[in-house]
């Protein structure tokens, strides 16, 4: 019960400020038709209810799945198996990530379907998957995170030179939205599970850094998508 109450408070806290700012704007500068504004308020209510149900569902269903798969995988101690399923999990979670869907919908609309929602989501998912696999390898072989970060960002700057300029902002935004309410706890749970079983070392230090790398992946994959399109 405490859990439910906490989730409700969390959701209200994250939606309310923006809603208040919009309401103030509506009655000071904008004056949209009342119907539009009422529809927006109903939308806010649905977003709120949706987020509450979603976060509860993530806690009851998704997180335990992530943790159990993470520790079951680590117990096998087969490196290629861990890395392979790390890739699959990263990709599969991203496909279900709400923020990624919202961004792709907008890109699809603005580009008049030229950059389709499905393709963008798949590109982002593959990017996250590859980098989750890489970060698991990083944990297993203790590679310093700065190497991968520097290498990753270096590659981004090179790729950006070859990709159509419209893809650059989208790719960076894709990197930002992957770290949404589903991916973050799920990947954290997976990484911490793998780190603690595999090397029995302080999970906290190695579990961190996973999200940073996971958000590098989509930037690269969307840039590559741009190179293919261009």
């Amino acid at each position, binding site marked *: 019960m405490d859990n439910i109450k906490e989730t409700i408070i969390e959701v209200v806290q994250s939606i309310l400020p923006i809603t208040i*700012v919009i309401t103030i704007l509506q009655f000071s*500068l904008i004056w949209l038709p009342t119907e539009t504004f009422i529809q927006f308020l109903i939308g806010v209510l649905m977003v709120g209810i949706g987020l509450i149900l979603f976060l509860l569902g993530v806690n*009851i269903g998704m997180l335990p799945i992530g943790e159990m798969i993470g520790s079951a995988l680590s117990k096998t101690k087969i490196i290629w198996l861990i890395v392979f399923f790390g890739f699959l999990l990263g990709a599969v979670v991203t496909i279900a990530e709400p923020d990624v869907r919202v961004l792709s919908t907008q890109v699809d609309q603005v580009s008049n379907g030229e950059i389709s929602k499905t393709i963008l989501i798949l590109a982002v998912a593959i990017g996250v998957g590859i980098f989750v696999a890489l970060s698991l390898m990083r944990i297993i072989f203790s590679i310093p995170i700065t190497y991968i970060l520097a290498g990753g960002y270096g590659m981004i700057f090179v790729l950006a030179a070859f990709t159509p300029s419209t893809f650059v902002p989208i790719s960076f935004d894709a990197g930002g939205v992957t770290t949404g309410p589903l991916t973050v706890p799920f990947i954290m749970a997976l990484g911490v599970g793998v780190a603690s079983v595999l090397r029995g070392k302080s999970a906290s230090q190695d579990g961190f850094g996973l999200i940073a790398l996971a958000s590098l992946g989509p930037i690269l994959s969307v840039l590559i998508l741009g190179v293919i399109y261009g």
Partner: protein
Amino acid sequence: MNIHIFQGFGQTMGEVAIALLPLIILFAIFQLFFLKLSLRKLLDIAIGILLTFLGLSFFLQGVHIGFLPIGEQIGKSLGAINYTWILIPIGFVLGFFATYAEPAVRVLIQQVERASSGYIPEKVLLYTVSIGVGLSVALSMIRILAGFSIWFFILPGYILALIMVKYSSKTFTSIAFDSGGVATGPMTATFILAMFVGIASVTEGRDPLLDGFGMVALVALAPILSVLTLGILYSRKEKELYVHKETETETDSYDR
């Protein structure tokens, strides 16, 4: 009255079902070969998945009928105003409050307080990150109005971050780069982004695809730079302690 609430809801639910399917299949494979959970636990997880499904459907539907259209319309009316400079403070206010209240930011703050053993108080980081995000959104407004390329902000931002990494401790580096996503929650990706696309579509000479997007990227930079800054301050303080100890004991175990 011309209100559409459940228009396309069936389609949204179908989309969500397809989105969750791969995860469910993967779980089913693990259940068969590795996990072999009891029926009771399976039931719990099934309830969780059902809640996720309903939640995601409602969330996306609400975004489609509420946040996206109003974001775009607000953007269009604001972009058409004569004194467009007002967009800059509005951007700051939106970014600041969206972050100040964001639960994910609270989690980050607790992490940092623990990592610095209380040297960096919660309030300091909360204000640093919120102001940082506010500035990012304000800068993005300037970017749209003036038509700068996104590189003018991204390149110096990340170069600065990589330089700061050299002076920050390892723990803070990890926390900093992980925290990039905390401020880019569902509200940023829905409302603020839609507003930017709206503004770009009515501002002359701007391409919504090229200039409307890119805001999330800047918002993701703000917490990284904030945490790194505080990390450097903290490691300085730690160094001072080290130097004090060193002069006292005259050893040179100095490797930070």
